[in-house]
């Protein structure tokens, strides 16, 4: 593969034998510094880096590619120690015809909303559960897709012990009966996902196969109303305690319902989800939290359905979905929902002002299921019963452009966060209020300044925080920033730390280089609804991305 890359240097266009190359490089390096105040010691290998190089070759209907990963000399803090090598991590060969699409090697796929099956990659939080096997997709017409796949999920640089196989069928019932009707669509889908893992232990008749099913239905029309629902049944299997299976078998289920309406200038969406024992792994021993700190070997996608915030203090207390059985806390899942309302006050209207104002309101509310456990560890629960409260988040955001050069985004957030459930700490739940002001001033079309002021108020945990960030954009290529999160309200005066950061970046076309120095607040880093713990750390970070 590298030989081919080398020979292509002599061509002005990366053109080899009539096909084309493309790819990308992504590299993040950190150099950790000892920090007395935080009690942070330099780890073994104070310099660490995660590097990904992806190369794709495309020739007509065929394409092939690979991803080379190097964790040198070891992976960044907070990543699984299975990432301890440098070699080709994923590879594939693909044929794409008019109706048939066949892939051999590593592939990514999602059935429905992902509640029953999803394989994806998220480098920032160390997730890559791509399936290595064979996938075939057949599209007999432009509104029907039939997929079949079989393989093993990626685990570190290897694959899991268990095999996963699935079939998914989806079609638009409206077009099935009336090919020319594009105004309304009723999509119906069905999936089956089977899991198999050999068992070599002592228990007799131990189930080596699990069968999971899902059904989904969706409607959307030009009148602006849409709705969809998905129901998943997870096959039964014993739970594991320190590797030992329980006598009882537990099955699982999930229901997801989404409704919305939108027209020009207004949009509203409401989602309801209930999950009972929905954590799915393609290797039995990874189902125990103690054995799986890094979200490895997961089969499906069960994200927290809350708003993804993007400011420093709004990400202090982040909800993590609770699909799993937890015998200690006597919880078996979660139930709740989320609502979003967006409204655009048009230019010229009273609240809109000269340039318009945008309003966004979001609320999410999550509880445990009201489960009653019996002495033999079986449990009962009703379908619509709301149990212990886990989390709520109500936030309002007003985005206003004041003049040609100046605009602001003001956000207020109110949160309820149960630390015992989220972090396993015995502590009373906390309530936090956060206010953020984000201001942008454009000097001209090439230079601008952005300024943030934030405040978090809470009576528990580390109490109050204040944060500020200033960022300058220069000449459309450079960016410089300096910021600080200050825990001024901490009861312990010695622990009123500043989590400062300073850095900059250079970007041109498809290349970007960024350098940062500062203190990273420890805790959950959540991206796309999946979270992992990052230990508190201090040091330099260098990142490079390039697409070619």
């Amino acid at each position, binding site marked *: 593969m590298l030989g081919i*890359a080398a020979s*292509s*240097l002599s*061509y*002005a*266009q*990366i053109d080899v034998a009539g096909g*084309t*190359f*493309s*790819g990308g490089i*992504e590299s993040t390096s950190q150099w950790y510094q000892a920090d007395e105040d935080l009690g942070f010691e330099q780890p073994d290998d104070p310099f660490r880096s995660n*590097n990904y*190089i992806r190369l*794709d070759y*495309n020739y007509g209907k065929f*394409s092939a590619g690979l991803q080379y990963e*190097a964790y*040198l*000399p070891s992976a960044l803090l907070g990543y699984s120690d299975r990432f301890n090598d*440098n070699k080709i991590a994923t590879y594939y060969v693909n044929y*794409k015809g008019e109706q048939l699409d066949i892939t051999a090697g590593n592939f*990514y796929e999602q059935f429905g909303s*992902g509640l029953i099956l999803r394989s*994806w990659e998220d480098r920032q939080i160390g997730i890559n559960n791509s399936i290595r096997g064979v996938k075939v997709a057949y599209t007999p017409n*432009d*509104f029907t897709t039939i997929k079949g796949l079989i393989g093993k999920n990626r685990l570190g640089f290897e694959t899991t012990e268990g095999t996963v196989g699935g079939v998914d069928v989806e079609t638009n019932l409206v077009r099935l009966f009336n090919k020319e009707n594009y105004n309304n*669509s009723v999509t119906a889908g069905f999936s089956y996902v089977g899991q198999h893992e050999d068992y070599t232990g002592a228990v007799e008749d131990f189930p080596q196969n699990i069968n999971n099913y899902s059904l989904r239905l*969706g409607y*959307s029309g030009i009148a*602006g109303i*849409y709705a969809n629902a998905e129901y998943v049944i997870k096959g039964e299997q014993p739970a594991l305690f320190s590797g030992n299976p329980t006598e009882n078998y537990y099955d699982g289920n999930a229901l997801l319902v989404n409704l919305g309406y*939108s*027209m020009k*200038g207004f*949009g509203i*969406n409401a989602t309801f989800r209930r999950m009972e024992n929905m954590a799915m792994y393609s290797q039995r021993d990874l189902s125990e939290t103690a054995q799986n700190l890094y979200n490895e070997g997961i089969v499906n996608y069960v*994200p927290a*359905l809350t*708003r993804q*915030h*993007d400011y420093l203090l709004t990400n202090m207390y982040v909800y993590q979905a609770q699909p799993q059985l937890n015998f200690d806390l006597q919880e078996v899942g979660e139930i709740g929902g*989320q609502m*979003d*309302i*967006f409204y655009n006050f*048009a230019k010229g209207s009273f609240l809109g002002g000269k340039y318009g104002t*945008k309003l966004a309101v979001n609320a999410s509310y999550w509880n445990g299921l009201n489960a009653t456990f019996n002495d033999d560890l079986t449990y009962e629960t009703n379908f619509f019963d709301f149990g212990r409260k886990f989390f709520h988040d109500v936030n309002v955001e007003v985005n206003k452009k004041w003049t040609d050069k100046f605009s602001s985004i003001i956000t207020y957030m109110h949160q309820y966060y149960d630390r015992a459930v989220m972090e396993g700490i015995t502590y009373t739940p906390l309530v936090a209020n956060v206010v953020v002001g984000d201001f942008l001033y*454009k000097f001209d*079309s*090439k230079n601008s300044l952005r300024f943030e002021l934030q405040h978090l108020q809470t009576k528990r945990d580390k109490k109050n925080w204040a944060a500020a960030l200033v960022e300058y*954009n220069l000449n459309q290529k450079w960016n410089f920033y300096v910021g600080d999160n200050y825990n001024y309200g901490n009861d312990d005066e010695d622990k009123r730390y500043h989590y400062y950061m300073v850095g900059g970046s250079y*970007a041109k*076309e*498809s*290349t970007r280089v960024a350098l940062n120095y500062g203190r990273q607040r420890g805790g959950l880093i959540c991206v*796309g*609804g999946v979270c992992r713990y990052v230990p508190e750390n201090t040091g330099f970070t260098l990142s490079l991305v390039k*697409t*070619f």
Partner: protein
Amino acid sequence: MKKKFLSAIFAMGLAVSSFAQDTAFPDMAVPDLQGNKVDVKALSSEGEPVVLAFWATWCGPCLLELNAINDKMDDWSSEANFKFYAVSVDDSKTVSRVQPKVNGSGWEFDILLDTNNELKRQLNFSTPPYTVIVKDGMVVYKHVGYQPGAEDLLFEKIKEFSN
């Protein structure tokens, strides 16, 4: 030893990429908000360039970019011929916010959904904002990130390719 090997890979990658001119746009159809599949590659060979702006509901700079483009779209459309799609890389966690947000923000452009990030993976970029211009099946321009005012540079490029 490992460090030298790594530098060699990087040098190779950078060398290959420094010769990078145009690469083929992947052959895949992406659904719009109604579920109808759009074949961008085929569309780009029908005379007009296709502009794809990748975004997500949680990406602050992306929203700044799309609000800015929305304000200028009327002028742009009268000065050049091109097709514009804002492609959302929101996955199942946040995809339900896409449709209400698009309408609730008063955006006029067409939206495509890349929910399992297959197109994002094929185009090899790290995070949004990311913009590409596709013409005759080839990616003729790419740009990472967004700073206020970058939409003007984007329009210069659009005019260049839409002659």
